[in-house]
């Protein structure tokens, strides 16, 4: 029993000796924290822009008076990014309100705006009335922004260079208006895959021909350098029109455009004319969205017994391309496959 006590005592002694020898010099004070509020203003703005509109308006701008001032500076709002997945947890009305506040703060200096999963024609109109400098618009899954809505505001974006639309019903009316009003347009994305089943009734009312979008682009967007039409239904007729109508095209994404056949002369022409060509069956490994095709309401559809490829493309299945090795993938719209009454092939 005494031995352990003595050991402890000895250790204490050693410690006491150690502390006594250094007791004359006080421990150095911790270095002061770096003055984050004294960073050059443009760096603070760079950081806060990356935080994203929602979090800036709700939290970051309330941290201190310096950040409050930066967040009220129009230069901070040259880019509005409301495309974070976390944003979609919020109410659409709140997101719309925040977008309007951000647009107001830009004081007409807005250059680029990205919106995902919210927004309607009224919001688009609000933005267009205040942002004549806009160069870049990206709309993902904005199902309440309509073809007519886009057409109505296109003339307010005369400097538009890039328009990227994913999963929407934009068609000839919108494309023609944008083409007429946005003579600077160099890059256009109209990636349409996945939601056609959901809005098939709207599309039927619009009486879309499979080549309508392609023909509208060909006729109205002659200055295009980059075009993406992922999952488009166009045939070789539409593709040919695009190659004729957009002579400056350098990049063309035709992935999942299964009605196109690039085996013959048209394919050769494509490869000669286009520097960066993505063919219908090319890998979607780097595609940022899941290539999901959903059938939402097949019950009220009537199909002729001999289904053409175009007709089959109206018939969608729960089919997640990411689950498959792309080399094994075959065209589900080919007439080689038979369909059961629920729309699944066997």
């Amino acid at each position, binding site marked *: 029993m005494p031995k352990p006590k003595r050991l402890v005592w000895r250790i204490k002694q050693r410690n006491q000796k150690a502390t006594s020898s250094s007791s004359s010099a006080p421990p150095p004070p911790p270095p002061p924290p770096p003055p984050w*509020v004294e*960073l050059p203003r443009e760096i603070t703005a*760079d950081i806060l822009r*990356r935080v994203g509109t929602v979090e800036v308006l709700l939290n*970051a701008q309330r941290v*201190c008076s310096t950040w409050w001032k930066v967040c009220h500076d129009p230069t901070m709002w040259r880019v509005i990014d409301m495309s974070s997945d976390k944003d979609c947890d919020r109410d659409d009305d709140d997101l719309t309100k925040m977008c309007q506040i951000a647009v107001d703060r830009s004081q007409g200096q807005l250059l680029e705006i990205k919106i995902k999963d919210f927004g309607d024609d009224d919001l688009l109109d609000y933005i267009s009335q205040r942002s004549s400098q806009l160069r870049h618009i990206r709309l993902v899954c904005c199902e309440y922004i309509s073809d007519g809505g886009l057409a109505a505001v296109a003339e307010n974006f005369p400097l538009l260079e890039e328009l990227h639309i994913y999963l929407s019903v934009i068609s000839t009316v919108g494309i023609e208006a944008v083409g007429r009003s946005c003579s600077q347009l160099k890059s256009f994305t109209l990636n349409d895959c996945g939601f056609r089943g959901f809005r098939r009734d709207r599309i039927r009312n619009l009486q879309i021909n499979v080549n309508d979008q392609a023909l509208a682009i060909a006729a109205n967007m002659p200055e295009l350098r980059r075009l993406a039409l992922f999952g488009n239904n166009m045939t070789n007729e539409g593709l040919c029109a695009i190659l004729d109508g957009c002579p400056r095209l350098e990049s063309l994404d035709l992935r999942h455009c299964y009605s196109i056949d690039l085996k013959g002369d048209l394919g050769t022409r494509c490869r000669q004319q286009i520097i960066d060509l993505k063919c219908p069956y090319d890998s979607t490994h780097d595609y940022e969205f899941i290539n999901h095709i959903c059938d939402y309401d097949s019950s009220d559809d009537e199909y002729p017994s001999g289904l053409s490829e175009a007709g089959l493309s109206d018939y969608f299945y729960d089919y997640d391309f990411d689950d498959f090795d792309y080399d094994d993938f075959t065209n589900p719209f080919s007439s080689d496959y038979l369909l059961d009454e629920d729309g699944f092939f066997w």
Partner: protein
Amino acid sequence: MSSTKLLTLKTSDGEEFKLDEAVAVKSQAIKNMVEDDCVSNAIPLPNVDSKTMTKVIEYWKKHSEEGVSKDQLNDFDKGFLEVHHSVLYDLLLAANYLNDKELVDVICQEVADRIKGKTPEEIRKEFDIKNDFTPEEEEKIRQENAWAFD
């Protein structure tokens, strides 16, 4: 084999670093000096201390290495940025002074990631920032943001 010219960089605390010119010109500021042909002696960097310069050079060297995959670089960056915010601050100022846009972008993104998902008080705590709003300003802010709390 290309000729490897060595540059000498001198930090604020007098330390000298010898570095391949091909690596050092990741700094646009140093690149400009090289092109203007004023690098016969050591290049003075009065706004960067040796501790920070060591880290910057570590980043430059990794990002100049051949045969490094994108994933490996991402892993490196992740570890490189896992530092106290005071180190990030010094790095950010140095990268800005040296005009290395890539490094500035990477650090700004890291700082932004540390801000995301936090309340104002949590952000203040993370970065040791003082709440310097007056009560009147706080009230004005609360009113301006009232829609968010309805």
